[in-house]
């Protein structure tokens, strides 16, 4: 395999490439990731990431990427297949319009996390910013999942057309109530689960009973969440959950005269 010698490749084993991203421009960093992905490398470890954007954007291989540091905006945008584990925080737009794949964040994520994703899974250990999971949609057999260990900002799941959002609120153990506003506004598909109660319900969304199937689904997601981050899943599952569903699949059906 030929690599440019000036690229900061510190280690290259059979299937693992290690990149030191310190002082690397994002375009150089990302072209390098694409190049190693095209050369049959299965794992990439990126060290010293200081906010470089677009890591994994538009990648469609089965690459496994480890990011150490703070990943910049639009991590994994339009991606189709890779899994990215971030040991640190990510900025805005992570998983933007992703098709399939996995994003695991050992930290927190910024605004519009999982915007318009239509498949794959995103697990955030701590909080997410505003407008997370906005316009998520499902399509044929693909269904997106967004699991947030901490809390989420306003407009969570706005315009949601499919998929599942689960907010666990683990970092606020004393809190029984989810206080973000405009949650699920204009949603016309998909489900939002919250641990505990929620205070503000967006227009177009309604509370529905949590049945056994819901608990199974929550249980599976919680188990997977705990696998990634090492929490006690049984303990989490002792809690009660609230479920939000869309009031209609045609929220604007009566808005227009024809």
């Amino acid at each position, binding site marked *: 395999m030929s690599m440019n010698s000036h690229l900061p490749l510190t280690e290259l084993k059979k299937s693992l490439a290690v990149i030191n991203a310190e002082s690397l421009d994002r375009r150089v960093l990302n072209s390098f990731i*694409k190049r190693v992905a095209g050369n049959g490398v299965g794992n990439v470890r990126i060290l010293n990431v200081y906010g470089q954007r677009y890591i994994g954007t538009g990648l469609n291989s089965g690459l496994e990427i480890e990011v150490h540091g703070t990943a910049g905006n639009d991590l994994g945008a339009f991606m189709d297949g890779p899994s990215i584990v971030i040991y640190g925080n990510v900025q805005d737009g992570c998983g933007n319009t992703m098709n399939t794949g996995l994003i695991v964040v050992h930290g927190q994520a910024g605004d519009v996390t999982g915007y318009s994703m239509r498949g794959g899974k995103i697990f955030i250990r701590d909080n997410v910013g505003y407008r997370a999971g906005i316009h998520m949609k499902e399509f044929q057999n693909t269904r997106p999942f967004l699991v947030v260990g901490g809390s989420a900002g306003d407009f969570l799941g706005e315009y949601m057309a499919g998929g599942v959002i689960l907010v666990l609120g683990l970092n606020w153990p004393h809190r029984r109530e989810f206080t973000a506003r405009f949650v699920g506004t204009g949603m016309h598909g998909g489900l939002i689960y919250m641990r505990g109660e929620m205070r503000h319900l967006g227009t177009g969304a309604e509370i529905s009973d949590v049945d056994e199937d819901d608990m199974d689904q929550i249980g599976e997601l919680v188990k997977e969440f705990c696998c990634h981050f090492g929490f006690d899943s049984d303990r989490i599952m002792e809690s009660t959950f609230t479920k939000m569903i869309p009031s209609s699949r045609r929220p604007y059906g009566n808005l227009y005269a024809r």
Partner: protein
Amino acid sequence: MKSYIIPEYTVDIDRDRCIRCKACIEQCTYGVHHYNAEKEAIISRNEECVNCQRCVVFCPTKAITVRKNQNSYRKNYHWTQDMIVFAKRQAETGAVALVGMGCDRPGFTYWDNLLLNASQVTNPSIDPLREPIELRTYLGRKPSKLDLAFNGGEAALATELAPQLCVETPILFAAMSYGAISWNAHHALAKAASELGIYFNIGEGGLDRRLYRYGERLIVQVASGRFGVHKEYLNVGAAIEIKIGQGAKPGIGGHLPGDKVNEDIARTRMIPLGTDALSPAPHHDIYSIEDLKQLIYALKEATDYRKPVAVKIAAVHNSAPIASGIVRAGADILAIDGFRGATGAAPKIIRDNVGIPIELALASVDQRLHEENIRDEVSLIASGGIRNSADVVKAIALGADAVYIGTAALVAMGCTLCQRCYSGKCPWGITTTDPEISRRLNPEVASRRLVNLVRAWSIEIKEMLGGMGMNAVESLRGNREQLRGVRLTDTELGILGVKMAGK
């Protein structure tokens, strides 16, 4: 509630000419015509007629005439009949009144106040029938200077050129999504663009895989709903356009009603069957020029910097500074859609009141980009109200590199601007997702009509260029000396950058 709305049209059938073949009943998708066996006559329900002219064209004996209803309210220049009907319809439904196509109000067409120049005596005109006239245009960011590298006396280009779109004539088919228009219409536009060496912007509804073979002649769109946007989609087109706004409805999003979202549409848009396909008004990851830059570069990253990225905005009051921001954010092409731009569905109140005419927006954007010395960094596409080749020539003289045509293309395929696209019943098989009605549009024939239209316009453009003594469309771009204004105020002339006729 009894409807107080009076019929807009009356259908007259000449009983002597009518042969009772019932073609009109067959052709009308609005159920206007019925056969009354007792009277042995076709009876028409005027109140359902939208004046699409389908029955008129298909009547073998030309027995049908559709007229504006002579019965009308008392004449009132302020409260026109349209205004009265509009208010009554809302009083009866309590809903936002929808409309299709572009604004039909008079007084916003500046093309008709602009006249073109021609050579007389002092510089010879060129005869396009004998001499070549170049219409080929490259769209994309141009370098401000070219660096050459010399190697043993051989010169090679050292400047890295930005990706370009090459059109054989400066006309592109405007964004029209699959869902807003039928599969056959979408197919016809892609096929015609391919044959003409131009581009069809497929709109925001995703791309059916059957059309991937036309990929190199398609511009794929990314709008706020992100319908059908995935890695392969981004890479299959020749360029990507970020849709921020649309001239027919600046500032608002789009709703494709769930009843139009059938299996094919759901698959192409990658959304659940039967749900409303909602395009929110803003992109929720774009609240600033910096955010726009982020999406432009996300798309460039996803396509390895190989495709030009265009940004389309509606023409609004601050278009010029917004355009400057868009160019600085890295857009390779800027499309501006004017006040008369059309749509499959928009609230009538928005269509007829929001935005500004393309002529003014285009002139002010071109001027501003020149003043800031960044005009070369972007190509401008003007759209929204281009009706013929003279409008194209005038747009180019006002600063456009090329134009998008939407309505003109639909008219070529059969559209009569009846403005009921949102009903899903388009009798010409264009703006419908009903497979039965769609079959009325033969993609082969429709594509031939489109090719003919653009070829005819191209010949006319060459005639006009030749008349001005130019042998390349490039010489006309932003060349406002070739334009003169009539019936315009000094302020209007100033914004257009055009002198009064006679000066």
